[in-house]
């Protein structure tokens, strides 16, 4: 903390929040310049969790990077796997069988539920509601993690997708269990919304806070729920129908204020749409193999070329750009991480607000530092 002098504002205070701060969602640091309580300048400082993900990816075989994608955004292992598998599939021309595509949709939507539930809990925690909403959120998270664990053997780091399909098949019992969780989910959402959505304090703390203009969001490359909260109708599941998404019926909720409250609401509405997709996918899952017969994990040498695979992750567009030169490891491996791109407009969102608001705004962006720093 130090005092700085500014000719327009007089005496200002520069405060470093983080990298160890209860509300920075990990090891993130914001250097804020304060005029009283108001933020007049904000500088994000990254890199406290820089783990060389991309560099390590270039030194490993294609398959060996799969578990590392789990650790990129550690709330959404399944969708990270999918984005990476999709990029490699584009490079190699492998085609997952229909059953595998269905399983992927089920797992991706479960991941979306998981991520948005946790986000809602953390966001409420950031507004100062210590404990209770997060307890509810983590209760639901455990149910989904049980499904993941039964399927892949691991709670968080599933390492489940393979190039041209999936690693293990789902059993009828697993599908029944998944269906049970999905059927019970709307009740949790109703309960959670009864607690939060109309809550006077939540509205006072979030409405009109951290507004983003749609033009700014588009110019900055913001994607995901944060973009849709500004009213921009852009969902990769619709515009770039990867996997089997064109087959499913669902709507894309849009906000119109672009404030923190809308960002929260979009996620709740998206969860309700996800439940619809999940029901369609679980009911429609066909029999058959789960792996392309041409697929091989070890010793994979895609033909020389480049590919970009992207999906609508829970946080936004997650994409992998891969360049192959025909060797057993990629010659370029690059991740387009939604958390990082969404975070770039943090200063614009926070200017003029108080420090307490900045904490809530940061919470509503939904960042995971593993993905921001990589």
């Amino acid at each position: 903390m130090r005092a700085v002098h500014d000719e327009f504002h007089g005496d200002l205070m520069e405060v470093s929040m983080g990298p160890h701060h209860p509300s920075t969602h990990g090891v993130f640091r914001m250097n804020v310049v304060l005029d009283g309580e108001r933020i007049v300048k904000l500088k994000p400082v990254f890199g406290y969790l820089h783990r060389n993900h991309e560099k390590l990816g270039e030194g490993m075989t294609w398959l060996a990077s799969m578990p590392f994608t789990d650790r990129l955004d550690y709330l959404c292992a399944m969708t990270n796997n999918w984005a990476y598998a999709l990029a490699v599939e584009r490079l190699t021309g492998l085609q997952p069988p229909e059953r595998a595509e269905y399983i992927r949709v089920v797992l991706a939507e479960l991941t979306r539920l998981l991520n948005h539930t946790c986000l809602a809990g953390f966001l409420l925690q950031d507004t100062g509601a210590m404990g209770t909403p997060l307890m509810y959120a983590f209760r639901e998270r455990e149910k989904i993690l049980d499904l993941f664990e039964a399927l892949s053997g691991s709670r968080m780091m599933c390492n489940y997708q393979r190039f041209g399909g999936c690693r293990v098949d789902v059993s009828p019992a697993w599908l029944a269990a998944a269906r049970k969780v999905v059927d019970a989910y709307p009740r949790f959402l109703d309960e959670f919304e009864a607690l939060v959505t109309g809550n006077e304090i939540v509205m006072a703390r979030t409405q009109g806070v951290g507004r983003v203009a749609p033009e700014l969001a588009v110019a900055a490359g913001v994607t995901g729920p944060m973009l849709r909260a500004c009213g921009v109708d852009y969902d990769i599941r619709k515009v770039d129908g990867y996997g089997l998404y064109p087959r499913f019926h669902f709507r894309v909720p849009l906000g119109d204020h672009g404030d923190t409250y809308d960002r929260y609401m979009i996620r709740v509405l998206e969860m309700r749409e996800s439940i619809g997709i999940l029901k369609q996918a679980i009911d429609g899952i066909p029999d058959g193999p789960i792996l392309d017969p041409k697929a091989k994990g070890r010793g994979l040498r895609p033909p020389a070329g480049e590919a970009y695979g992207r999906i609508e992750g829970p946080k936004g567009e997650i994409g992998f750009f891969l360049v192959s030169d025909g060797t057993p490891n990629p010659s370029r491996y690059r991740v387009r991480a939604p958390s990082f791109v969404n975070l770039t407009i943090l200063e614009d969102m926070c200017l003029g607000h108080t420090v307490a608001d900045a904490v809530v705004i940061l919470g509503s962006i939904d960042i995971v530092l593993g993905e921001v720093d990589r």
Partner: protein
Amino acid sequence: MSDATTTTITEEQRAELRRHGILLTSLQELYNWGRSNSVWPLQFGLACCAIEMIAASMARFDIARFGSEVFRPSPRQADLLIVSGTVTKKMAPQVVRLWNQMPEPKYCIAMGACAISGGPFKQGYNVLKGIDRYIPVDVYVPGCPPRPEALLHGLMKLQEKIRAQPLAGPDAPRHLRADDPCVYPVPECGATDLEPPFNPEVWKPPTLVRDDA
């Protein structure tokens, strides 16, 4: 009273007394019992493992059963540092500084492969190969990430360790001895690596001698 009159009570006698509602104990046991059942961790997460640490404090796993649900936002109110996640070289000085700011008696759990050894990211130039190079670690909880139950087991091991600590003598904990430092040097980012690369007081790497040398 002379020494001849003092007798040692055996464990059976003690248990017998306890059945009659009389609790005979030593100051050491009372002190350790109190401390081991109120280990307050610092609210401090570094990476993926932190999510499982949070899960351990949530509804299903309920770390409150062990008296450790009070995650403190300030190091000055905490007595357990759970290093949960990857420590990068950029973050390591901050971790050591937080450790220094915690008052004695304090303990450290290294949670997950990254905190223990660098884990899957060990090859990374920017990843610290184990936090035990700079601060003394009491319990290692392996896994990537360890399940919340594993963390709870680590916590129980730590409680056992605290209960067994003598209050005096050479085996007494740091804060009861004059010869052991409670504050450790904070490394700085040097030209190629952290300076110093490890704290020789805490970490003594084995000297590898090759047979053919």
